[in-house]
């Protein structure tokens, strides 16, 4: 009877010594496994990075939450977001960032010349939610909000209208007869409308404009998969804290569907490629073992002659297939680790370690099963060989 430790030792030895014969198969399985680990581990990370980097895609993950006008017959004060709304929404799972916005008219005076424009009162999260960057200067942050600073960020088109030039950071302008420092020039990105507007801290707007009560909120989700659940939860979450009968949610469903469809195809393609690689690897093992069984016919005959039973021969070939696929799996996990490292470096993010371990373990189990499956039939065939015809085989 073949002992387990002998079986393992002999099979590993056999595979190591015949590594040249199995190198292609080994690499195919390792590559497939490695890719699988990288994609499963980094999938969500990649998706959320796509969101951040591509304004086109990012737009689809932004939910607009707003109070509808009550109507002419309503006498009570219109509803608006109370303090803490942003924090409440941020606490929902899948939310990346939230911002409150208020829109008001204004006129800027520079060099005795008035320009009408629309001013946005925004908090420090506005830029992140909308994926905005500056052309020059900087986009104001928390300090400006907390200290209610009189600063303004201008769209390029607006800057041209007011100043007739773009090097305006550091200039002072008067808005509604109050002096503001121009701290930044906005890069409008793909939404050219944004270039027409000015932006000042929401708190500052509250100080200098009448009736500033934010009635509009933008919520950015981590990935497009989060948009549905978040849009369902956001109203309930706010209603739990305040009266909000006229609260509405607006989602760019069309854009979202479009993106989801593209991503679905991309994912399908990737998983298909990986499956094909692994399948090919499995077939490679099967084919390699089949050839091995044939070319080792005489060895099988001799071993049976010296007392090996059918089951011993079977075990030996299965163990070789499993050893082979196990090596491939380990190599694949190595590649996977490398791939994840590379991906985190490229995305400037962190790898979810627990996922990495989980998927690595799963991959090893999977490749072992692959070896078992692919090795079974050749092994069965080897074990069933007639001892005499195997010995007579040249």
């Amino acid at each position, binding site marked *: *009877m*073949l*002992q387990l*430790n*002998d079986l393992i030792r*002999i099979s590993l*030895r*056999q595979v190591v*010594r*015949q590594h040249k014969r199995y190198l292609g198969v080994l690499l195919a399985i390792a590559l497939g496994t490695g890719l699988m680990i990288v994609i499963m581990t980094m999938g969500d990370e990649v998706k959320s990075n796509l969101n951040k980097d591509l304004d086109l895609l990012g737009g689809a993950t932004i939910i607009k939450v707003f109070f509808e006008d009550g109507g002419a017959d309503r006498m009570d004060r219109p509803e608006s977001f109370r303090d803490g709304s942003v924090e409440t929404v941020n606490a929902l799972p899948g939310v990346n960032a939230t911002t409150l916005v208020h829109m008001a008219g204004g006129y800027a005076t520079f060099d005795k010349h008035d320009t009408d424009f629309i001013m946005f009162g925004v908090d420090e999260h506005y830029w992140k939610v909308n994926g905005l960057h500056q052309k020059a200067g900087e986009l104001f942050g928390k300090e400006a909000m907390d200290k209610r600073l009189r600063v303004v960020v201008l769209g390029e088109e607006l800057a041209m209208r007011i100043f007739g030039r773009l090097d305006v950071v550091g200039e002072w302008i008067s808005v509604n007869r109050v002096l503001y420092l121009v701290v930044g020039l906005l890069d409008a990105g793909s939404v050219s409308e944004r270039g027409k507007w000015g932006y000042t801290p929401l708190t500052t707007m509250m100080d200098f404009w009448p009736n500033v009560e934010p009635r509009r909120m933008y919520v950015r989700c981590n990935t497009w998969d989060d948009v549905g659940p978040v849009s369902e939860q956001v109203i309930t979450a706010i209603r739990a804290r305040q009266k909000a009968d006229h609260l509405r949610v607006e989602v760019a469903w069309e854009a979202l569907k479009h993106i989801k469809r593209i991503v679905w195809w991309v994912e399908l393609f990737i998983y298909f490629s990986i499956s094909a690689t692994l399948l090919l690897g499995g077939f490679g093992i099967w084919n390699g073992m089949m050839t091995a069984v044939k070319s*080792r016919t*005489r*060895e099988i005959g*001799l*071993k*049976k*002659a*010296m*007392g*090996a*039973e*059918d089951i*011993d021969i079977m075990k030996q070939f299965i163990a070789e297939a499993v050893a082979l696929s196990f090596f491939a799996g380990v190599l694949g996990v190595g590649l996977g680790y490398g791939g994840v490292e590379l991906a985190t470096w490229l995305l400037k993010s962190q790898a979810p370690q627990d996922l990495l371990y989980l998927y690595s373990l799963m991959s090893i189990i999977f490749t072992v099963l692959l070896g078992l499956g692919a090795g079974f039939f050749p092994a069965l065939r080897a074990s069933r060989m007639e*001892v*005499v015809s195997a*010995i*007579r085989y*040249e």
Partner: protein
Amino acid sequence: MREPVIQVRGMTKDYSNGPQVIPILKGIDLDVYPGDMVAIMGPSGMGKSTFLFILGLLLPPSGGSYMVKGQEVAKLTRSQQAQFRRTFAGFVFQSCNLFEHTKVFENLEFPLIYAGVPRKDRAAMIDEALAKVNMMHRRNHPANRLSGGEQQRVSIARALVNRPSIIFADEPTGQLDLKHSRMVMEHFQRFVSEDKTAMVVVTHDPGVAEQCTRTLYLRDGNLYEQ
């Protein structure tokens, strides 16, 4: 009273070729005692190898009785036969006896593994068998780099390693020149006489038969003394 290692009575073997039944062995009687070295000669295609396979429990006979050390073995199951072979018989064939991608001592380890010999006891048994054929100096060599004669000597050592009661050899010198053929037969002789083991060797070579204790001819399905 000496007891035979193997005792064959009225053994027959037919091969079926489609509907046609071809009798190969037609009622053979044979006793082999410890210390016997029986040469079987005869024209090729007469069934010498077939007979040897049956004696080695690798092939079932069609009829007759076959006793090994007093036990009837003709009707054992496949698995029982395998168990029997582990300690009862050692085989040496004409060529290509050694396994690919193995070293000399690893070749000798397989019979011990299948026989369930504990790992710690194996090295001593392997070395003893290798010493008997003067191959200790090649212990860690890759098997496929040995010369034909050396390979046959290792095969003999492998057949001996489990200390079997009988050795079956099918033209073991068929691929060797005169010098190496002599050497191989001398190893067999020494082993048989020292360990009181039996041996049945199929051969074409009268020189080999001369080194045996008894020579038989297989012709038309029957065994004849010289």
